[in-house]
């Protein structure tokens, strides 16, 4: 028989709840280590993503000089001169040692200095990416925000009226929105709104802002930025709205069957309090991680949307950088995107801990 453990402090108060023994200090310690573990894991994922991106870029065929030369050539420069011009701009050594490059790259990663864009060497890659990314983040963010507002309310309403015509209609719309590619939907919107009906000033809406509007903290600028971003926002909102709607409906349906909701009704609580404090709050919990996931996939999927909508955001830039073989930009963009996805999910996790008290003590499985 093993030796008995050191006697704990005498504490035999009736009904001493188990949590008391762990004490706040321990909880905080565990909590801290959980956060630490999550962060360490995130850093590892970012490193892996960076390395994979580096390798992909490194072994991707195609020479940025030749590609730029091709562009110059087709815009009216002789082939020789085009190559010379491209060489003048792009300092790129295709034969450099992989390891040296990789180590440089890692060093750059740590020091946040990934060098300059190949095709536009006067800018650091971060500057370059930041030129575009905020616009996409703005559009995606606004789209997701819109989707959250619409999707969650409609989804919840549908769950409340399960089986009604409203529910069937909304569920169909939700499946439609999630099922049909968002770029197809937005293309259809353009064709119908612009080409067929002529009510959508699509061509004026392209780009980020209208000429003459100075960026700044004023209504005109924001109004204009929104005017230009409205189609991307709608496009991004499409899928997200659909999936939030369906998920929210499912989650709400699930929560509605929970005992505590029935109990709340039995308690004669007001309907509004039940739907907000009891149903909504709990149904939201599983949606929150999906919001982060949606943000990630939408930013990733912005390539096609921005292409169709001619919205110069991160997707277009990425596409451009890839076809130009502007490796540093691609790397930086991917790393920034990956990092933001990772950070978003980290934030969501940490946020969930705040809104769902159950996680703090039990759910450390992650």
């Amino acid at each position, binding site marked *: *028989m*093993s030796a*008995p453990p050191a*006697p*704990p402090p005498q504490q*035999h108060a*009736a009904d*001493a709840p*188990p949590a008391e023994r762990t004490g706040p200090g321990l909880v905080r310690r565990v909590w801290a280590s959980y956060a630490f573990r999550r962060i360490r894991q995130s850093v590892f994922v970012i490193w892996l993503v960076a390395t994979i991106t580096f390798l992909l870029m490194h072994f991707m065929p195609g020479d940025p000089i030749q590609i730029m030369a091709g562009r110059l050539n087709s815009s009216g420069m002789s082939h020789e001169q085009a190559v010379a011009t491209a060489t003048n701009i792009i300092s790129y050594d295709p034969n450099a040692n992989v390891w040296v490059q990789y180590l440089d790259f890692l060093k750059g990663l740590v020091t946040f200095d990934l060098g300059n864009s190949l095709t536009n060497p006067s800018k650091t890659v971060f500057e370059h990416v930041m030129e575009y990314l905020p616009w996409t983040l703005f559009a995606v963010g606004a789209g997701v925000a819109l989707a959250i507002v619409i999707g969650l309310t409609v989804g919840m309403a549908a769950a409340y009226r399960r089986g009604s015509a409203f529910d069937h209609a909304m569920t169909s719309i939700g499946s439609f929105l999630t099922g049909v590619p968002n770029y197809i939907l937005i293309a259809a919107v353009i064709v119908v709104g612009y080409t067929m009906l002529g009510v959508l000033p699509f061509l004026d809406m392209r780009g980020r802002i209208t000429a003459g509007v100075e960026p700044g903290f004023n209504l005109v600028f924001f109004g204009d930025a929104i005017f230009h971003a409205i189609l991307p926002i709608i496009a991004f909102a499409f899928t997200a709205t659909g999936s939030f709607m369906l998920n929210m409906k499912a989650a709400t349906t699930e929560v509605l069957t929970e005992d505590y909701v029935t109990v709340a009704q039995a308690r004669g609580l007001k309907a509004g309090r039940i739907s907000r404090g009891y149903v909504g709050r709990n149904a939201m919990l599983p949606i929150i991680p999906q919001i982060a996931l949606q943000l990630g996939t939408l930013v990733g999927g912005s390539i096609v949307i921005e292409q169709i909508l001619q919205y110069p955001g991160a997707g277009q830039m990425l596409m451009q950088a890839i076809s130009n073989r502007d490796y540093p930009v691609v790397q930086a963009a991917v790393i920034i995107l990956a990092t933001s996805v990772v950070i978003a999910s980290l934030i969501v996790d940490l946020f969930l801990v705040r809104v769902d008290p159950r996680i703090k003590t039990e759910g450390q499985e992650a």
Partner: protein
Amino acid sequence: MPETAKTAAPLLRLRGLEQVFDTKKGPVAAVGGVDLEVKAGKVLCLVGESGCGKTTTARAAAGITRPTAGAVEFRGRPLTDMNSGEKSAYRRAVQYIHQDPYAALNPTRTVASTLTAGLKRHGLVKNRTEARAKAAELLQLVELTPPESYLDSYPHQLSGGQRQRVNVARSLAMNPELLICDESTSMLDVSIRVSLLNTLGRLRDDLDVGFLFITHDLAVAKYFAWDGEIAVMYLGKVVEHGPTPEVIGNPQHPYTKALIGAVCEPDPDLAKANRSADQLRSAEIPSLTDLPAGCAFHPRCPAFEPGLCDAARPALVDTGGPGLPTAGAGPERRGRSVSCHVVARDITRTRPSGGDRTLTFDAVPGSRRPGAEASADDPTTSPAESESSGAAWSA
């Protein structure tokens, strides 16, 4: 009671079984040193509150988990020493029946295919026809007749009791010598529970199958293990162990007493009479990660004596018992054992020469029937200590 003196090794023996789980909150000693044995055709019933380690013990006995210390021996052979042939024999001889009859059956497979999978796998049948015939036979054995109306059913087409019977049939397919039933009847309704227990009892008697029977329901334990033994577990340890009629009718450990006292009997008059029965000092079970010092039960124990109970862990000591040899703590020991300082002390104090058992605290609360006081058999003991095995009403 077919008596004693079997020298052969018991079917299953647990020796100092310990199971410590590593959890985020620290090590959890779910089972902390359990010695038990089950003999062929006999029932050993394990009872105790939720979380006391019954399932963990059973799973280790079934070889599902590997204990962190101690040994599981099958027919005298420790599991760890077995070669693959022995191991597979052991696997077949020891079958496990789960608690939840719904979850234990694969919803995508028919009864027939559930029953024949093991048969086919172990080459116990030659072909499909034979397998099916065997399956039908098994269904009859567990009283699912006519078998053909069940063979091609899916689990969701069966009721809970029927499913549990299929589970039993599946384990019988392996010709088991030992059935480990983990709360196998607790999800069933009373009437169905009885009939299943009766079926299991028939298997025990007719097929000489041994049972490690786990339940938290003392009534079930009493009903099914009347001829066998009961071991009461508390926080990973056996606190009382003995023949069923003894343990139920004359519990010694305060915990066992509390358990028996807490049972609600289907008898309104009896219930009314015992309404004011004693309470434990605390209703909460301590956490396994943070066990109280000394006797793990002391924070709740009505017989708690400061300085004695919270100092050291009590050992499971033999207290003897009527008609059972008290000497020789060897494997053939059939006496009662209790792990309680107070009981141990009182035995040595009042019975230096081996007299009668005496307790200094209230005996089982709640077994007093109005007007039944008169049958107290020993005026020197506490007035509460009343009936031994006297049945107030019988069949």
